[in-house]
């Protein structure tokens, strides 16, 4: 009888011991880390940096919670497993959001590229109509230099776009577009000014040698 009681107590102790020894949910930890890595590959740090930072913070908290449990005599990983399930969902959402935002920025850059090409073409046409006089002008030289700078910048923006650096391309193309619009306005103003000032001249008559006019030297 004594032996039976003792064996019963021992059995109870073993059951209690075994039930409090949980296993680290390593598979879930690995899966969550992989999901976060996927978000980084999707350039979440560029397109949705705050969201990525939040998910990384959650993972840090989970890692600490795992060590807290390991530090104890009796481990409980149930709540940690639940948090891992939530975090992996968030990480996958971050990836999806990064991909979506990247597509939006890419589309914006493409639209700006199309717009700026149209403005540059119009500027080239307006430049030909701009008041030149006999020898051209400092103002036209300035505009010519500006147009060359814009062209160079569009090429750089295209290079960034081709590399997939859409954010950088966006910054560059926005600045180029602002400059191109400014030149467009300047050219239109210059042409309008000349058109308004100069009255319609009579049709050119055949050149007759002017009487008593000294030879043009200058």
């Amino acid at each position, binding site marked *: 009888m*004594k032996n039976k*009681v003792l064996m019963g*107590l021992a059995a109870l*102790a073993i059951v209690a011991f075994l039930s409090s020894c949980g296993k680290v949910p390593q598979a879930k930890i690995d899966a969550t880390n992989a999901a976060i890595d996927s978000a980084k590959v999707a350039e979440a740090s560029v397109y949705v940096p*705050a969201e990525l*930072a939040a998910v990384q*913070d959650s993972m*840090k*908290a989970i*890692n*600490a919670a795992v*060590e*807290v449990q*390991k*530090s*104890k*005599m009796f481990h409980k990983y149930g709540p940690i497993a639940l948090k891992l399930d939530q975090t992996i969902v968030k990480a996958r959402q971050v990836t999806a959001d990064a991909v979506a935002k990247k597509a939006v920025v890419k589309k914006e850059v493409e639209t700006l590229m199309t717009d700026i090409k149209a403005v540059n073409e119009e500027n080239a046409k307006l430049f030909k109509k701009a*008041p*030149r*006089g*006999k*020898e*051209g*002008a*400092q*103002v*036209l*030289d*300035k505009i*010519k*230099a*500006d147009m*060359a*700078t*814009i062209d160079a*910048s569009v090429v750089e923006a295209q290079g960034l776009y081709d590399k997939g650096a859409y954010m950088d391309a966006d*910054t*560059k193309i*926005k*600045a*180029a577009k*602002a*400059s191109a619009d400014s030149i467009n306005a300047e050219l239109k103003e*210059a042409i309008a*000014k*000349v058109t308004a*000032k*100069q*009255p319609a001249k009579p049709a050119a*008559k055949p050149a*007759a040698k*002017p*009487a*008593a*006019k*000294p*030879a*043009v*030297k*200058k």
Partner: protein
Amino acid sequence: MRKILRWLIFILSTAALIWLVILLLIHITPLPPEDEMTYARQTLSEAGRGKADTYSKKLYSEAKADYDSAMAIWRRENKRFLFFRHYEKVETYAKLSAKTANQANESSETNSSTLKIRLKDKIDSITKTAYNINKFFGRYPMPTEIRNRISKGNFLLQEGEVAYNKGQYLPANTKITESEYLLTGVYDNAIAELKDYFKSFSTWKQWTQSAIDESKKSRSYSIIVDKFSRKCYVYLRGEKKYEFEAELGRNWVGDKRRMGDLATPEGNYKIVNKFHGKETEYYKSLSLDYPNARDKERFQDEMSKGTLPAWAKIGGGIEIHGGGGKGVDWTEGCIALTDSEIDLVYNIAKVGTPVTIVGSIKNISQILDN
């Protein structure tokens, strides 16, 4: 009955003993620095949200490294047998991480707001420089290389402003600093050149005053051309009567030195002829007596010194004529007015009417302060 009681006492004693042992084991088990690690992690996270990784990079990196060290030591200790674990180093690194992260956060706030203010001031200052370059030197003859520098400087300023408005202060700072270097360099050089040109101001002032005094004394018309301001003034009896916009030779800065240099001469001249209709291609024109004696003397001097090419000729045919109103300096050295303006000047001017052409009737301080 006694036997049952004895067994009951034995079981309860055994259970109590087991619980005492368990409590003792729990008591002597070392506690991990959970609170310290949580605080360190939260502080680091806050520093990250405050962009300390950008604006206080060194401190933030140190805080992050301390936290990672704390975690690594914690993992290592947890692999040891329960009662042989030591978490003191984990606690030390956790506290150090929290302290450094706080410093990083404070430093980042200060750095980013200081940078933001400094950038705003720089943008305003460079915008003003760009405006001044356009205002004073928009029609200044400049080599293509200088025009390209101005263009690039203006463009970098635009890019800097876009980055600034996006809150990207470090990339904005790079663009704006480069823009400042280009535009300030151009402006400073242009101002130095202008100051050099204005060394002749005392001569111009004297010519201008003499022309006005002569107009007053002779009670007649006198024409004064201010090249820098692009103005053609008509004085009668010493009083300014008319003021017109004038367009000059493309290389208007400085005196005319030779034929074909596209410069408008400076000096005291007279109208020697009047042309209109078929006699001129510019509607109406007033021919001047360039080169005068001073011009000839200077030309000879330059030729003898070799500062002009051997094939150079002094030139001539400088006029005040119509066809202007283009808004640019386009002539080969003449002074162009609009057709309606030349009508007026043509009617009042006679052969012999003095025409004084100067670099400026205002001194450089008056020009730059305005």
